[in-house]
């Protein structure tokens, strides 16, 4: 029998709870690891933003090489439908809390590739996006400004519910899955079981389920751990 794992939310009785919350979100906003998925030309603005000229690290943001150890997914430029698959896989691998930044006009509305049959237009149809930085391409100053905005959002997360776009992916998984299925076909399945994760984090709502998740269940092959062996 499958064992149900659940994090039980304890009742908050500590009078200093909100102080700790504030402190935690303060710490989170000061230490961010960024995975840059450089799909388009916007990537050229990142080296100056990262290195000594604008120095992203003074904001506490460092580049990271793997999705599992990163907080921010930075998508720089147009996302072709083929790439979008990989971007979604990368996004789902990241641990919560996770943030997505869309750089360049292409992630907002297709940009100069708006007529193309091969590029996805709105990134936030397929995954929740925290901050968009429009421009073709945005200058490093704009990139820094956007990162600063994200930091502020994380800092004010608990107060204004700003920096929690990632929760939306669990809350409204059916919507995102529907858009993904419309592009990739009905048998689309990722190696991450989002519904199980939503249950684990206690983030499931009515909108987590729907006709698209039913369709997924129909096609879903069970996710088994891979056998470890030497051939």
């Amino acid at each position, binding site marked *: 029998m499958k064992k149900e794992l659940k994090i039980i939310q304890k009742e908050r009785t500590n009078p200093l709870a909100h102080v700790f919350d504030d402190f935690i979100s303060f710490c989170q906003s000061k230490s961010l690891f960024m995975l840059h998925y450089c799909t388009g030309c916007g990537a050229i603005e990142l080296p100056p933003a990262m290195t000594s000229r604008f120095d992203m690290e003074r904001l506490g943001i460092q580049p990271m090489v793997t999705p599992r150890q990163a907080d921010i997914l930075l998508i720089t430029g147009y996302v072709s*439908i*083929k790439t979008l*698959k990989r971007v979604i896989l990368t996004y789902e691998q990241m641990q919560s809390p996770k943030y997505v930044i869309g750089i360049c006009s292409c992630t*907002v*509305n*297709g940009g100069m590739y*708006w*007529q*193309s*049959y*091969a590029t*996805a*237009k*709105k990134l936030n*149809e397929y995954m929740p996006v925290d901050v968009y930085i429009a421009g073709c391409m945005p200058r490093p100053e704009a990139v820094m400004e956007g990162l600063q905005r994200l930091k502020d959002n994380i800092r004010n997360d608990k107060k204004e519910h700003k920096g929690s776009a990632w929760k939306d992916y669990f809350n409204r998984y059916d919507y995102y899955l529907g858009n993904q299925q*419309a*592009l*990739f*076909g009905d048998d689309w399945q990722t190696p991450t079981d989002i519904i199980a994760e939503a249950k684990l984090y206690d983030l499931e709502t009515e909108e987590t389920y729907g006709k698209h998740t039913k369709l997924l269940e129909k096609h879903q092959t069970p996710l088994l751990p891979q056998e470890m062996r030497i051939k």
Partner: protein
Amino acid sequence: MNKVPIDEILNKVNGIKITHKRKTRIRVDVDADSLPTLLELIKGRASYIHLSAITCVDWIADNQFELVYHVWSYEEKCLISAHTRIDRGSESNPAKYVSVYDLFKPADFFERDIFEMYGVTFIGSPRMEKFILTEWNGVPPMLKDFDAEAYVQETFKWTDYNPDWLQELTDQGGGIAVKPEDIRTAGNTHNMSTHRERDKAKAAAVKANEKMQGWKQ
């Protein structure tokens, strides 16, 4: 070994038309039947061993595809572009042509690319299957009768962006001086069948130009 002039070799092919563009570029027009013969000749008799690309042009008005084989010689430092025209076919009877894979191995990829983008089947090519557009199930997208814009409009949604500062421009009729439709109709005059259509398009183009001038001032 005496070097045979390239023209002498090319002239062995029936119905060939040779145009010397530059010192390093020769354009050759041949029938679809004699193109493989030509390629074999210039590979075997001359030193044209590098097939650098195969391109395809969709001449929708003539109901033909134009295939261009670019073959480079490292010794002559010269590129022969062999043009040929094949029947465009239809949906039920797609265009077919013979593969040159046995002559030039890289043709595998070029032919696969053309198969994907234009739907031309190359008989004898080892892998006539999807190449880059693995997520694409529609008609070959580079065909002139595939309307990418219509496809995009019905497939994707758009982000709304209506800030206050843009409102002034929107009230004036938008920020676009010349609408894309006008440019497109103006550019496509050669495809139009009647004089009336042509005149209409030209008038639209003139109007669009005037509008553009107005915006510049």
